[in-house]
């Protein structure tokens, strides 16, 4: 027997009287929960209430996954408190209804199960997760500047205990299927071949739901406020409420409103209405869209796919690029004239893979097997892509590329990871100089999401497309930029860093400068960043960009061998990989404005010279490549908004937000 068929889901009953509700949103690749979908869901649940099955399995008919969350377009459209409240209630009422069904329910989770999707799963009696790499569970709302409003803040701590729940809620972290089982988020974790049978057996099992151990039960009840205030203190170390109010709101909702987001009065700073209408949420949504746009650039680039990658230079950048490629399934040969350097790079790579794959030694082994030491450069002849990452020495790079060009396949993509040299200059010795493109990774490669893909004028489209698709396959965001000194990110970042160094010369203590910029929203202060980059590298980059005059102190430090973190002394003294900053004496009003202005100016300059195609891409580059604070929406976006608001006299002084 099979009952209601709708646009977005269907229900079938099997021989045991178990109803299978298959989510299948019409016209979309994924099951994002739109208003229309929730409405139909509500109707279907109503029909099931009238003719109750023995149990209900909620699963997805989509290849891509279970449910990726609420519909982003609808989130974006929220412009009033009423709209926010309506959205919150739509889902929370439905999920409450599902939670109260008189028969057992199970969510069968394969692929992504995020945000509203996980809140739906939490409303079910049981959760079965499928043990596949693509299976990811999490509540990433906080990353969009909003809060889970469909019962997640109430149900998650009750299921897995406050410590785990708050970690997931406040960071937006996603967990794997196995981890979900370990945390108690899922009841069973099974192989795909038995998932349907497992879901049927679990829903009919009548098994007891998980009870929290006494300690966590206490934390979730009588100690709730204490736990929340502790978490708030830890949170304050990481993010500031004025920049990112959402995680603070989550703690308020859990501690003061029983986890019910709808119970918060609209005027309260923790209310969904306040959050969803805030600049932060709009900007974070914008960042989400920018990310999607860069991903699409890679996804839709097309071109012949790459399999064999050859990396020349096993230093920090080359070694880390090779490690990333091998981890993402490419066959990699790593060349360096010093085989010791290759060995060291592989040693570093193994550490990184072990962290990424946790206990999965077979994944580490597979990556290791794919990363082949190649001191003599045999791999050049068969590689689909050759990435050069040797020291920034023009002559050495030129010689290398004329050799590479002679040995490589005619259709291989040739790329340099240079950050300060001109691609055209490097290509000058080549027979076909237009073959060379830039592929500029950022340090540390494993963590920085952006890769600048540089196409000099006249470069082939095919190589460009293949490079974009390759960067996407690495799990990175490709940013197409034109060939210009410093491309986009370094060209905009360097004037900001140099301005900070000039402030040091003006007598402002480094710690004060860094503190001011962190208070403004940067994750790391500019002076400390220079120390981390290396003073010699910064000086060379500044000279390459023609940023004259370079700060005199910087040149002195480099002269004296005080190169920053790597030498133990730069603008700060370094111990165990940390800058010994000490307390920041005094405050410097207007400092942030002084420092950010050159960055914004340089970004605008790059835009006007056509280094990036539009302002959104410039913002994306600075956010994902230079860590420009996401809550601002990017340098050009925030600058434009500032100019807009400055013309309105009734707005209060913006000095604190964006001096």
């Amino acid at each position, binding site marked *: 027997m099979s009952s209601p068929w709708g646009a977005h889901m269907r229900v079938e009953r099997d021989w045991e009287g178990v109803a299978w509700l298959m989510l299948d949103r019409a016209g979309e690749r994924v099951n994002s929960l739109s208003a229309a979908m929730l409405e139909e869901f509500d109707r279907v649940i109503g029909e099931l209430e009238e003719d109750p099955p023995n149990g209900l399995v909620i699963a997805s008919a989509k290849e891509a996954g279970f449910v990726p969350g609420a519909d982003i377009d609808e989130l974006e459209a929220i412009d009033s408190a009423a709209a926010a409240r309506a959205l919150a209630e739509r889902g929370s009422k439905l999920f409450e209804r599902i939670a109260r069904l008189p028969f057992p329910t199970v969510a069968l989770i394969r692929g992504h199960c995020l945000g509203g999707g996980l809140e739906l799963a939490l409303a079910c009696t049981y959760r079965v997760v499928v043990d596949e790499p693509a299976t990811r569970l999490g509540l990433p709302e906080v990353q969009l500047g909003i809060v889970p409003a469909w019962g997640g803040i109430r149900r998650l701590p009750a299921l897995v205990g406050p410590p785990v729940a708050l970690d997931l809620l406040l960071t937006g972290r996603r967990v794997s299927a196995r981890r979900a089982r370990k945390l108690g988020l899922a009841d069973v974790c099974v192989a795909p071949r038995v998932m349907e049978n497992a879901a049927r057996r679990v829903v009919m099992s009548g098994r007891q739901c998980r009870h929290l151990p006494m300690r966590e039960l206490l934390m979730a009840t009588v100690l709730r406020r204490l736990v929340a205030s502790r978490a708030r203190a830890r949170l304050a170390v990481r993010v500031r409420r004025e920049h990112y109010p959402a995680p603070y709101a989550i703690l308020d909702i859990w501690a003061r409103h029983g986890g019910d987001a709808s119970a918060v009065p609209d005027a309260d700073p923790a209310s969904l209405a306040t959050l969803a209408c805030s600049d932060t949420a709009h900007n974070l949504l914008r960042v989400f869209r920018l990310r999607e746009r860069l991903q699409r650039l890679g996804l839709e680039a097309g071109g012949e796919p790459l399999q064999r990658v050859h990396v020349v230079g096993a230093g920090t950048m080359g070694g880390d690029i090779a490690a990333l490629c091998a981890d993402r399934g490419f*066959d990699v*040969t790593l060349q360096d004239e010093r*085989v*010791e350097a*290759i*060995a*060291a*790079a*592989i*040693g*570093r790579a*193994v550490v990184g893979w072990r962290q990424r794959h946790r206990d999965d030694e077979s994944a*580490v*082994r*597979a990556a*290791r*097997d*794919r990363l*082949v*030491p*190649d*001191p*003599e450069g*045999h*791999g050049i*002849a*068969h590689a689909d892509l050759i990435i050069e990452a040797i020291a920034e020495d023009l002559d050495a790079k030129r010689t290398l590329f004329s050799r590479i060009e002679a040995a490589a396949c005619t259709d291989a993509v040739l790329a340099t990871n240079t950050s300060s040299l001109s691609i055209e200059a490097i290509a000058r010795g080549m027979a076909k100089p237009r073959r060379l493109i830039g592929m500029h990774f950022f340090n540390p490669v494993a963590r920085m999401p952006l890769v600048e893909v540089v196409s000099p004028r006249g470069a082939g489209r095919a190589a460009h497309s293949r490079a974009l698709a390759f960067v996407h396959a690495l799990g990175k965001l490709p940013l197409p930029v034109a060939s210009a000194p410093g491309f986009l990110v370094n060209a905009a970042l360097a004037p900001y860093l140099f301005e900070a160094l000039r402030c040091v010369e003006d007598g402002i203590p480094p710690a004060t400068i860094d503190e001011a910029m962190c208070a403004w929203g940067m994750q790391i202060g500019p002076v400390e960043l220079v120390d981390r980059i290396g003073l010699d590298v910064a000086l060379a980059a500044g000279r390459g960009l023609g940023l004259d005059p370079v700060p005199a102190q910087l040149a002195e430090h480099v002269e004296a061998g005080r190169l920053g973190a790597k030498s133990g002394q730069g603008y700060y003294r370094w111990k165990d990989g940390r800058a010994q900053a000490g307390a920041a004496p005094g405050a410097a009003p207007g400092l942030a404005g002084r420092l950010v202005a050159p960055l914004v100016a340089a970004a605008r300059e790059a835009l006007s010279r056509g280094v990036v195609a539009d302002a959104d891409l410039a913002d994306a580059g600075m956010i994902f490549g230079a860590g420009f604070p996401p809550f601002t929406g990017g340098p050009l976006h925030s600058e434009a908004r500032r100019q807009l608001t400055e013309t309105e006299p009734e707005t209060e002084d913006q000095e604190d937000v964006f001096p």
Partner: protein
Amino acid sequence: MSEAIYIVDGARTPFLKARGGPGPFSAADLATACGTQLLARQPFAPNALDQVILGCASPAPDEANIARVVALRMGCGHRMPAWTTQRNCASGLQAIDSACAEIRLGRADLMLAGGVDALSRTPLLFSDAFVRWLADWRAERSLRARLRLLRRLRLRDLAPEPALLRGLTDPVIGQMMGQTAENLAARFGISRDEMDTWALRSHARAAAAREAGQFDEIVPLIGPDGRLYAADDGVRADSTPADLARLKPFFDRKYGNVTAGNSSQVTDGAAWLVLASERAVERHGLCPRARIVDCAWAALDPAEMGLGPVHACAPLLARNDLNGADIGLWEINEAFAAQVIACLRAWEDEDYCREEFGMDCGTGAPPIGRINIDGGAIALGHPVGATGPRIVLHLAAAMRREAVARGIATLCVGGGQGGAMLLEAVE
């Protein structure tokens, strides 16, 4: 032999001496690391091979059909047939011979054949008595029966037994390999001094060859900790006759002459060869380094297994209308110094030859200066399965260097067999 078979490339890992505990690489790790580096320099893609054959005397329990495990790990693809050969010390030579047979039969054109063993990783076994006791324990349910069983358990039953020692003991005659070498020493009157002199020669030759850069078939190994292993670690350029003389006999503890110093070293290592038919050479533009002409196998009394080379070379030479003088270079695996010397004595011994083969051995033993010119397993190590491919690969290189027309690589095989492979230079 209609079809010509060429060695077009090959590589081996450094041979790493077993130093008490398990080494840094499993057998599959060794063969994979060696093979990926070898395949990365070929003009063909790894999935263009027709088959992968790997010889291994003691794969770990999780390396069943280790050839297939390694083929998959090397990126040869799901469709790559792969199989493992086991013929003790000749496991790897058998892999090469089997690959040749496939090509000769016209069933394949491009083969990857090699050998591997990680002797440092051979397991410790429970004693048979303890295994039986455990089975009884699982069978008994009652407390009383289990108490009775507990009383039966003896401390000495708990002592683990190294699988390596069992593997190196002939199960039919109950003699350790080193004891079969003692048999030969007794039969041919080989002194401790002669053995040690051969061992010193092996180290000196290997050290000189390394100095001269003659081991360019070695590709580096890199441990998960980033440690680099670039060279064989058992070669001792500085050992003296006095050092060797101090060592105690290992196999016949009190009265024997075979010591750890004049035996091959227990090591971990892998070696691979790319073998191609004429067709494959043309299709992929490969560069032949030597031609494999023939391979012969023979068997003899397990107690004298060390004479295997003598027995295998006789039919090999006869079949190809050659005699010893036609062979410009020899690789005779040094399982034991006594065993190599015994082979030389047997070749010179008219009586032995007439007795064993009913004919003259021909021209007698090859000149010492033509044998193992770059050292042997006493200095380099003997990771059982990898040895055959190592000596064939090195012979091919040495033949080019010395501009020699023909060479033989031969080894003795535990259990009483011998294998020998005839190579011919290509222009």
